[in-house]
């Protein structure tokens, strides 16, 4: 599979589920290649063999055998295998078998022109109330109501998604304004963020950013979030970053964010 991945030039792979996606892409391309070479070979042979200078009089009937029917049936059968054997069950696993929220990390990601707002529930595991009236582009882009007890420990970041290694992540996608598409090339994740809807998408990152830096030999390597749906004049620069940390380091990062929150809350009281 690695050979196929390199041959097709797919991005590096960093999620537990992405391997199946790559396999389906790989085998479909093998099938396409065989069909193209088969048809193309027959086509080229006909052009050479039956050119007018060599074949003066055409044959009224042409091909008498029905071999082409078998090739058409073969195409249908292989497509059916790709469809019922792989694509439909794999999609069902992604959409219907979302891991339970107790074992997974749930993150809310809200797209807007042209940034990704990331929202963690914090230690209490409950997302705080948001209110459109509290919304402020600089200070409070999500309109989070810090007076709500559940909101006190909520961590928000802009364009930075920190994730723990080997734990299922459920991203609940939303959009404030227009349709965006949350695209994580290395994790083989893509999902539209559509205003008016909250759409979950899940995956399990299995390579840390540090590990990927070693593998690629690029000390500056970063996983990226790329908007994949035209969302206005800044669509091309609607870029975010994903940092995958092992469980301990992720906890450290979360603790530091919590400490910052306490400090800010303290400021208000002083």
């Amino acid at each position, binding site marked *: 599979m690695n050979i196929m991945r390199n041959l097709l*030039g*797919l*991005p590096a792979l960093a999620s537990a589920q992405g391997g199946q996606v790559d396999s*389906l*892409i790989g085998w479909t*391309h093998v099938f*396409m290649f065989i069909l*193209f070479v088969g*048809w*193309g070979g*027959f*086509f080229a042979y*006909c052009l050479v063999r*039956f*050119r007018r200078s060599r074949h*003066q009089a*055409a*044959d*009224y009937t*042409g*091909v008498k055998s029905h071999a*082409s029917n078998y090739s058409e049936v073969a*195409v*249908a059968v292989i*497509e059916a295998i790709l469809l019922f054997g792989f*694509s*439909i069950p794999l*999609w*069902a696993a*992604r*959409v*219907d078998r979302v891991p339970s929220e107790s074992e997974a990390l749930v993150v809310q990601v809200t797209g*807007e022109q042209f940034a990704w707002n990331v929202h963690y529930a914090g230690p209490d595991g409950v997302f705080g109330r948001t209110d*459109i009236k509290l*919304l402020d*582009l600089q200070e409070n*882009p999500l309109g989070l109501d810090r007076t709500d007890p559940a909101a006190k420990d909520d961590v928000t970041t802009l364009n930075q998604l920190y994730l723990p290694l080997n734990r299922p992540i459920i991203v609940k996608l939303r959009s*404030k*304004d*227009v*349709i965006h*598409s949350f*695209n994580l090339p290395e994790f083989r994740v893509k999902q*539209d963020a*559509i*205003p*008016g*809807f909250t*759409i979950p998408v899940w995956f399990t990152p299995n390579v840390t950013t540090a590990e990927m830096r070693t593998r690629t030999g690029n000390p*500056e390597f970063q996983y*990226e979030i790329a*908007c*994949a*749906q*035209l*969302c*206005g*004049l800044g669509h*091309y620069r609607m*870029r975010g970053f994903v940092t995958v940390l092992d469980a301990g380091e992720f906890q450290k990062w979360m603790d530091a964010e919590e400490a910052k929150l306490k400090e800010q809350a303290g400021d208000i009281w002083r």
Partner: protein
Amino acid sequence: MSQPGAVVVPASHDAHEAHHEELGFWRKYVFSVDHKVIGIQYAITGLLFLLFGFSLMMLMRWQLAYPGAALPLLGRILGEARMPGGTMLPDFYNELGAMHGTIMVFLGVVPLAVGGFGNFVLPLQIGAPDMAFPRLNMLSYWAFFLGGVTMLASFLVPGGAAQSGWTSYAPLSVLAGAGQTMWLIGMVFLITSSLFGAINFITTTIQLRAKGLTFMRFPFFVWAQFVTAFLLLLAFPPLEAAAVLQLMDRLAGTSFFLPSGLVVSGQVLTVAGGGNPILWQHLFWFLAHPEVYVLILPAMGIVAEIIANNTRKPLWGYRSMVYSLIFLGFMSFIVWAHHMFMTGMGTAMAAFFQTTTMIISIPSVVILTALIISLWGGSIRFNTPMLFALGFLPMFGIGGLTGLPLGLNVADIPLHDTYYVIGHFHYVVAPGTIFALFAGIYYWFPKATGRRMNETLGKIHFLGSFVCMNVVFMPMFLMGLAGVSRRLYDGGATYAFAQPVLHLNVVSSWGAWILAIFQIPFIFNFFWSIWKGEKTEENPWQATTIEWASPSPPPHGNFLAAPEAYRGPYEYSVPGAAKDFVPQYEA
């Protein structure tokens, strides 16, 4: 005109003369009701729009190959609002993108394939004196023309033309500037024009066919136009309705496509709310998927005619091709949501639409296979129309095959909305459909003008275009596999993961610019041949179908005597016949 086969055609040349007084310039060439003049009007307007849409793309390709670099000279002409100091602004890039797609599809290919070839060739091929409703036909062209003018004028309104993609997804499109309003009004004209045309094609095909021309004696091109007309008739009204709804959202304060609670640039949007952005996508793609077949079926029709003629043998598997065509037309109505796999679709709906998508590939495979097998045992003439028709086969093959991973929605996850998609549908439409349209122009040019186009220039045009098309579009598959999104103003330069494939943008761009140079021999050949081309008799290709029974160019009323069909459309190299073709119209 009520009985099929009982066509009222002037019985003799004298009667024909007696019917028509000489028309003035305006009624003969501009406000004409003659299907041939209308067909040529459609074709020339369509070709001009193809050139214009291609030019928009060449400008975009500059920005993609050299993001942020100032474009000398042309940049200054386009002005400060679009290209200050010669550097393209993102808004202008998005305008070019949206209008390239819109113009190529709705103002270029469809008018040429259906309005041009359908109008000119179909009545001749079925032996009809004209379309069933000549005035409706004229109205169809002028509605199209107004739609085109509206689209062109939209570049001049404040804020420029539409810039939300040719798909015009809400809410982005609803929130966009005045150009989007123009786009919607333009679409209403264009769709109305298509409806008029569709009604006319269906009626004409059923009612005005020559005596003896049963359905299974139709040339494949007639079948293709006939099925296409049903797609236009049934698929376009939903988009017309959707366009009016979006217009209401923009102008009347409704919220068909806007949910409540939108916040744009930090400001809460005061709209009625309660609408659904996905509704637009369903309505749009309910039209736009059949639209793909509106682009491809007439192309298949043209290619089939030319292959039969230049292999000098009947099409192999004509009946299964016809049944596949009808099945394709039907299936094209129930695959649309495969464009929407990433909207959060559940298993049942995704399973349905991928299954229909896989099923629709089968009739396409049958038609393509039949066309290739038709070559076996032929005596193949490699003239210019044949070269383009042959070029169509592998190019459409690549376009069709690359649809497979996109149609399987798990494989589609990384590929959706990337350059892979752009490569895929351009292979279908550009070296696919447009090659077929070129083939058709070279093939029927002698019928329209009485003169042939130059073969040497035609072959230069073909070879250059064939190579360049692949240089433009093949790299897009690699960019898409690497994950580069489409519609990026800088071609992906922002993203680290795109860096290894960015140089392919330069390859594509140069391919496009050189492709433009190879269109010059065609443009020159086209105009030069109208006046100076080698004169031909009425049937220069020694073809069998009925259009070749009329004089070249055909007079008003088309035929000197009402033609009759005595046999199938492709009786080439019949064993025991005196010559290698037995025309359909010879007793």
